[in-house]
């Protein structure tokens, strides 16, 4: 199934892109997603300060999402706005 990953803030530099597509068997867990990424990026995405959003809905800090067909998973570093 297709998934879309979005990298915000400095994660865009770590990923070398703002977003990417991935194809995984459904349903997919976060560790399964990270296992498909380059090790350096996977390490950056394992930062416990990150928050996750699935399809624009923020997840609880300790959530373990099961991703479904077409989901957009966003990786959100601590904000530094305004």
């Amino acid at each position: 199934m297709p998934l879309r990953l979005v990298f915000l803030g400095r994660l865009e530099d770590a990923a070398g892109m703002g977003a990417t597509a991935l194809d995984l068997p459904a349903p997919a867990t976060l560790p399964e997603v990270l296992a498909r990424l380059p090790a350096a990026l996977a390490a950056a995405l394992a930062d416990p300060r990150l928050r996750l959003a699935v399809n624009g809905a923020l997840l609880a800090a300790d959530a373990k999402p099961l991703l479904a067909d077409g989901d957009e998973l966003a990786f959100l570093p601590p904000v530094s706005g305004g």
Partner: protein
Amino acid sequence: MACEASLAESAFDPSAEITRFTAAHALAGGIVSFIGQVRVGEGVEALELRHYAPLTLPGMVALAEATVTRWALDGLSIIHRSGVMLPGEPIVLVLAAARHRRDAFAAADYAMDHLKSESWFWKREKIAGIWRWIEPRAQDYADLARWDRSV
């Protein structure tokens, strides 16, 4: 009670917004505004704010709604830039209109603290041609914590 929040993708004119807001809230005795702008003269050539559309504007709207619930306001407006800004350009404008000025001051202050620390923006600065992501400031968290122990 009217509240509004908007995300500006290009430069906006705080004075024009203040004029419009003030005229729209003629019943209010006092209007407090906060203008945040890109500082001139510290070697910052440009500043960029990135946002995540599904979260950022909805979060600003929720903050505006929470703020008008907390104080007796006649109106509240939040405008926040995203994209690339140059020194001297406005980043954020918060406007609060109230019958009593204490409410307007507190509401604008509260909205700014929460915008700074909790809204979904990521900032980078260009200095000497190099873009660098900015980490959250400890001061912003300290500012935010003030509101947990007082009205």
